[in-house]
């Protein structure tokens, strides 16, 4: 009996506490505006530990873009690689490079950025023992095989191709001619690292220190990161706001709801379900701009059924059977653009983008499609099964639409079906193990805005992302030739000839270019997305 009294009493106290707390809330803290205003933005939990050479997805990349500056930086508007910390990068033979870095740069903890900051960081990134997911970025540097052998243990601690020759100079020796190599150096994996990264790694991970316009103020892993403008930043792209608070959202729908309720300033991933309302909700505060992402259908060339001579006709036929315009308009609400080549519009015509390259092979023409498929000997096994992972994105919807389009064109409602795979990991597993039995969804987000990056990793023999194991001697020869070319314009021309081989063989069916989509509140202005569909945070102003 005594126990029961006690129970009810504590319940009452609890009730009062909750009510008090409830009335105490309301009216959120109205943050300051002007040059010191803080921008709140949605975020996703980075998948891997937050290190420059270990981050290969957008969410972690977003932070690296704020807290790091490398030798080069891609102009957020044109995508051109411009010198940032690099004073000059010189080469006579496209193999040996001498890098000189600018004077006066420091990390936000005061440590100067020297040649050693780069060389140490690159050696760390390449070394097998450090498990860096992006280690292969250093694969062109001489001595990479010693620190990162394909099997067995590393035999060296540093790459022989990297040498510090002065406080602000170092030399790089590549294993092959690579004329556009300096332009790859804007990628985050090539960022310099302060000595505290090596001396107290755990502390660095808990609160990363870089040399960019922002410094990390606090970081609660998995939920929030507060970045503040670093006033000592020497670059000319200083932050025009006081800082950015990144909040992890479990669901991008909730982030969007928060934006419409006025609790969040910026959402850089408008959920598919909201695309219909987004113009009504946000008006011109909705951004939908091209990004360096292309989606394709890859084929399993390791399967003899899919690799018979003359079958490029079947692949071309399938490509012509897909009504890209209709699918991008209805399913993606114009956040995708029908593909006209195998690169991306963000490269621009000078960078190698060519909207006439695919030509009629990418034009919807049901009659010609049917004819081509028949000429090529019909679909292997009588049915196309398009594989995709069902756990994220709206892949099911567009795969079904593509299949519908193919079925209609071929006049056979069993010609194409979707083949869902449960999780992304399992999907990647089947691809890695070469177990695909038909075409499968492939997406490519560029690492740097170079035509080389859209071709070599995807179609070169045994390249890192050549998931379909396509190989073509002519293509490989042209890529080698382009890489050895010292004149950038001629190099791009040769890359385009290589892309022509991809087209003639229809190595993969290009589907559409993906746009970056973002929405923002009327509290902030000057919001734009760069070619990687990441907001250009330092340019945002708070009203």
């Amino acid at each position, binding site marked *: 009996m005594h126990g*029961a009294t006690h129970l009810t009493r504590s319940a009452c106290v609890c*009730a009062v506490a*909750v009510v008090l707390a409830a009335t105490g809330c309301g009216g959120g803290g109205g943050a300051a505006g002007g040059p010191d205003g803080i921008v709140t933005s949605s975020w996703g939990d980075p998948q891997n530990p937050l290190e420059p050479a270990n981050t290969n997805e957008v969410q972690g990349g977003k932070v690296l873009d704020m807290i790091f500056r490398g030798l080069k930086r891609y102009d957020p508007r044109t995508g051109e690689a411009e010198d940032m910390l690099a004073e000059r990068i010189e080469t006579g033979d496209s193999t040996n490079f001498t890098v000189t870095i600018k004077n006066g740069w420091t990390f936000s903890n005061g440590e100067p950025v020297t040649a050693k900051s780069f060389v140490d960081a690159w050696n760390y990134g390449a070394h097998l023992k450090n498990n860096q997911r992006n280690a*292969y970025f250093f694969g062109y540097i001489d001595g990479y095989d010693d620190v990162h052998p394909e099997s067995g243990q590393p035999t060296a601690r540093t790459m022989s191709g990297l040498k510090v020759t002065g406080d602000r100079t170092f030399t790089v020796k590549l294993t092959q001619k690579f004329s556009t190599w300096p332009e790859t150096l804007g990628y985050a994996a090539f960022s310099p690292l302060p000595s505290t990264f090596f001396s107290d790694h755990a502390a660095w991970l808990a609160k990363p220190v870089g040399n960019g316009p922002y410094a990390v103020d606090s970081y609660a892993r998995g*939920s929030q990161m507060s970045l503040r403008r670093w006033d000592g930043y020497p670059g000319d792209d200083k932050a025009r706001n006081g800082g950015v608070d990144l909040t992890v959202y*479990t*669901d991008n729908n*909730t982030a969007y709801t928060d934006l419409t309720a006025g609790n969040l300033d910026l959402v850089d991933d408008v959920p598919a379900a909201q695309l219909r309302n987004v113009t009504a909700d946000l008006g011109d505060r909705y951004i939908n701009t091209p990004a360096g992402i292309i989606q394709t259908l890859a084929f399993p060339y390791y399967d003899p059924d899919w690799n018979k001579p003359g079958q490029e006709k079947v692949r071309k036929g399938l490509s012509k059977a897909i009504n890209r315009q209709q699918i991008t308009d209805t399913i993606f609400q114009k956040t995708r653009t029908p593909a006209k080549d195998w690169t991306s519009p963000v490269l621009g015509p000078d960078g190698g983008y060519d909207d006439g390259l695919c030509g009629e092979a990418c034009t919807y023409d049901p009659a010609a499609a049917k004819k081509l498929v028949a000429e090529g000997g019909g679909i292997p096994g009588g049915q196309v099964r398009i594989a995709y992972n069902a756990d994220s994105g709206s892949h099911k919807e567009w795969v079904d639409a593509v299949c519908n389009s193919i079925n209609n064109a071929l006049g056979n409602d069993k010609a194409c079906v979707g083949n869902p795979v449960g999780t992304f990991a399992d999907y*990647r597993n089947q691809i890695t193990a070469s177990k695909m039995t038909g075409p499968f969804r492939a997406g490519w987000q560029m690492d740097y805005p170079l035509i080389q990056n859209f071709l070599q990793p995807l179609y070169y023999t045994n390249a*890192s992302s050549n998931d379909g194991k396509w190989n073509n001697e002519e293509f490989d020869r042209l890529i080698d030739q382009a890489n050895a070319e010292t004149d950038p314009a001629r190099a791009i021309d040769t890359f385009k000839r290589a892309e022509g081989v991809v087209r003639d063989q229809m190595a993969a069916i290009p589907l559409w270019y993906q746009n970056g989509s973002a929405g923002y509140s009327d509290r902030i202005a000057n919001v734009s997305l760069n070619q990687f569909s990441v907001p250009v945070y330092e340019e945002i102003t708070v009203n």
Partner: protein
Amino acid sequence: MGRYVIRRLLQMIPVFIGATLLIFLMVNVMGDPIAGLCGQRECDPATAAQLRKEFGLDKPVWQQYLTYMGNLFTGDFGTAFNGQPVTELMADAFPVTIRLTLVAIFFEVVIGITLGVLTGLRRGRPVDTGVLLLTLVVIAVPTFVTGLLLQLLLGVEWGWIRPSVSSEATLDELIVPGLVLAAVSLAYVTRLTRTSIAENRRADYVRTAIAKGLPRRRVITRHLLRNSLIPVVTFIGADIGALMGGAIVTERIFNIHGVGYQLYQGILRQNTQTVVGFVTVLVLVFLLVNLLVDLLYAVLDPRIRYA
């Protein structure tokens, strides 16, 4: 009583081992998680092998399980793929979910039992019918519908609450999510209490108590309610475990970084260490709460004794 508790605690050991083994095997069946770690691109074989070694994925499953269990006894729950120790994830997630569960249970107890007593004493009257209908609606509508509707109405349209919960997840922010989470169970608690009260109202001891001239209030709270609470306590006890594990939907809607969120992430990334760790703790919570419920019986009804 003491022996009973010890016996129950000992019984937990096989349940615990069985449950972890099952989860371990289930997550393992999903395949090699390393493949998904490098994004759209294949991990280079050397790095993949190195990662596999670091996470112990290169060993046979039984060996992985034994190592895992061995580490567990030293308090080491392994490392998540993002480099964070799982114990750190737990320290972040469990307090949030426990707070959310407490808010939910609070609503269940206060609103559920009050409504139950009210309707149980007025069977057949308009109040009774009204509440019955209401509970029917609540049970029939799925949690995510209630959640999204309340979020839209209270958060966006009327601006009474923030549509999402901040990373601190304070008690006042959790009121609406807690109510959403509790809604269905609350309806059940109401119905259970109502039936139980209505049944016991005609019991001899209640008549005796009334005949003794005890005040009505005392009859209801001390005699009627106390005896009617046994099935309700059983339900609420079982519900604590269910709420903690089943908060995924609510946590997702209101952006709460609790256990549900971590489990969801763990499953998507096929992170064995995270999933098994969290489920293990949930199993323990479930077992302990059940023991507590059984012990509470004796408090409510002294006739129930444990030798």
